[in-house]
């Protein structure tokens, strides 16, 4: 698999953090999140990310990308998490571009991926349905051929960034309730597509999508076969999971540093709070929780880049640990800030909210534990049967 050298990774990491530290202050964040730009993120920022090469970091050089892999994605997402960036990286460069890359024909890839790398196309991945929960194989949306077009009916739950996406990647069964699941590129403004725009817990906007006879051209179906794509979707959602883990790692590092700094300056009982051993130990636990997540997420990113046989399990494991770490670090960052952590005015609460999103997107820790348990049981049965 393609991958950067350690030096190249360091450069990517530094460029991200330098740029965001200079240009993405919390004041700027508030302006972007709360308007007047009602999209809830920055178009100018997005153009800049394209220029700096972040959007195409994991796309092949032939389509204007930098030829990186999942680890390079991880570096970008960690930088995004460190500054709780609002721009729709997840839907566009991880899931949307991933779907086109894994399912699209060469012609589709050549047409769309350069636009993504150039920052000209925003995507949202709309797969989950209202009764699916975290289950990934529960698809009831149906696409029926109608002359030279498809008519799609179905309901998709809240997807981050869907409100502003040029194109929605929609999963639907071909022909009937038990047909194979295919992916469709549906313009957000297509007839029969209705969005209910809402904020997520962390204030980022997104939308639920209702499709009622939504009409799309025949070439809106991604790829050139009616092959069932549930397996690919599973891989994509695992990519999403490891991407939000990387994002959480960045957010945890940042909020832990902020908490250490706060306790060094906050005076109570005639000394800084950082002098109290119980609080020192808590900060240590926050730091170690962040390190545990960073280490296991790194291992999973590497396993994905190596296409290792246990890569999927590595992602699940990383998500369980990261979810636990994120919950602990986020909660303690508020606890140790006291009232200061409870205000909308200061960043701590916003990190807590972002970490909560990272913890739950694509399945929470309990859900991945179940997957790990079920997979272990299945392989034990397979072994005893031989």
């Amino acid at each position, binding site marked *: 698999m393609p991958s950067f050298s350690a030096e190249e990774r360091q450069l990517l990491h530094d460029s991200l953090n330098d740029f965001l530290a200079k240009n993405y202050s919390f004041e700027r964040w508030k302006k972007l999140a709360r308007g007047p730009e009602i999209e809830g993120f920055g178009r100018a920022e997005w153009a800049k990310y394209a220029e700096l090469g972040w959007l195409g970091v994991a796309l092949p050089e032939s389509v204007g990308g930098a030829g990186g892999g999942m680890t390079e994605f991880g570096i970008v997402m960690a930088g995004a998490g460190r500054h709780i960036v609002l721009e729709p990286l997840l839907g566009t460069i991880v899931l949307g571009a991933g779907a086109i890359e894994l399912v699209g024909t060469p012609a589709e890839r050549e047409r769309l991926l350069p636009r993504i790398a150039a920052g000209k196309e925003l995507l949202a991945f709309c797969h989950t349905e209202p009764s699916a929960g975290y289950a990934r194989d529960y698809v009831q949306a149906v696409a029926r051929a109608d002359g030279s077009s498809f008519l799609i009916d179905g309901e998709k739950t809240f997807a981050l960034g869907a409100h502003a996406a040029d194109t929605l990647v929609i999963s639907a069964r071909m022909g009937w309730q038990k047909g194979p699941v295919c992916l469709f590129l549906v313009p957000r403004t297509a007839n029969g597509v209705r969005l209910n725009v809402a904020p997520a*817990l962390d*204030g980022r906007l997104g939308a639920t999508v209702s499709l009622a006879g939504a009409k799309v051209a025949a070439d809106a179906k991604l790829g050139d076969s009616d092959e069932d794509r549930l397996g690919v979707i599973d891989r994509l959602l695992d990519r999403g999971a490891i991407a939000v883990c990387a994002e959480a790692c960045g957010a945890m590092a940042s909020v832990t540093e902020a908490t250490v700094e706060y306790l060094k300056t906050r005076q109570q009982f005639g000394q800084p709070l950082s002098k109290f051993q119980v609080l020192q130990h808590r900060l240590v636990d926050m730091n170690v929780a962040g390190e545990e997540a960073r280490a296991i997420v790194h291992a999973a990113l590497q396993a994905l880049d190596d296409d290792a046989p246990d890569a999927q399990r590595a992602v699940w494991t990383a998500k369980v640990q990261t979810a636990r770490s994120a919950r602990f670090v986020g909660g303690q960052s508020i606890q140790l800030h006291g009232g200061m952590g409870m205000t909308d*005015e200061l960043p701590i609460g916003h990190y807590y909210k972002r970490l909560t999103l990272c913890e739950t997107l694509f399945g929470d820790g309990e859900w991945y534990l179940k997957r790990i348990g079920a997979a272990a049981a299945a392989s034990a049965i397979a072994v005893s049967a031989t």
Partner: protein
Amino acid sequence: MFIRAVQHNTELDAFRAEVREFCKSEMPAEVRRKQARGQHLERHEYDAWLKRLGSRGWLTGKWPKEHGGLGWQPEQFLAFQEELGRAGAPPLISFGPTMAGPVIYTFGTPAQKKKYLSGIIKNETWWCQGYSEPGAGSDLAGLKTRAVRDGNHYVVNGQKIWTSMAHWADMMFALVRTNPDAKKQEGISFLLIDMKSPGITVRPIIGITLGHHLNEVFFENVRVPVENLIGEENKGWTYAKFLLANERVGNVDIAKLEAHLAQIRRLLDETREGGTALAEDPVFQRRMAELEVGFATVKALMADQLAAARANGAPSLMGAAALKLRGTELQQAILQTGLDVLGRHGMVFQSDALHAGWNGELIGPEASADVIYEHLYRRAATIYGGSSEVQKNIIAKGALGL
């Protein structure tokens, strides 16, 4: 161990039925509708409901009869709370009945009792708490708001912060420094301050809930009559601690916990994973069982403290600390379970839906926005009333002699 006589449950059945019937017939339809969606009540709606409860004496049912209470046994108080929670009634507000009232009837002058107690019993007066300051959080005794005697008044200057509901309050009970030269606990006095006094400015703090609950309160040459001093000058720390023990028992809101649990059960019924209700998921069944065990334990701890308050006039500082510690952790665990369900709906937070008149389209179960709001708000449960770390210090020192 196991000495206290526990009131037998069957004696309470009639009372429970009375509370249920009351909630059914007396809760205004608009309040009921808003409560179902977790929508915020206007002050006047809240006030009307609390006044109805107050007309029965139920806001202050656990006060001794001699001070206008009903002298409830612990089990009756718990039954009352449980029924309110099950009926989906608005939460009770503890600043008057749990905090100010007992300080006034225990340490106040006859004139103060006459002036303030009936207003609390009938909810004619709304109170807020002037304790925390920017520089005095865990280290409450480090407070700096000054009160200087000037004839028949104290002149108050300084700032309080994190003051819940100050924007709705008629009165504040406040800790002020009257002797800056004494050891810090020995220079504090306890004052009752009319919030309409000239020189008071209340500024909202918007919380991570995106709601307005907290405030900063500024005092600039605020003149407070000397007759509003509770007990003796510079002995305020004693009354402050007495109040804190009551406050910490009140921090564990049984009605609210009962209502949260009912909400989470509904969320589990209304949420599907792969088409099957989460209520059927063994992992969630186990977690709900864990929460039930926690709830039963917290109620038992609370019954002890209510009994101690009846016997000794106040809960024990250590017992209240233990109850507060576990009760607030339980509240967070319940609301975390709610959040874990709502992850299945994309973790949407339509905070606007909490305001009456919102006509957008809800995503996910009806209670979603309320559960997220409460989850965020109750991150402070292990901070307000003294952080969990402070509670542990109290138990370490007071109960274990460390």
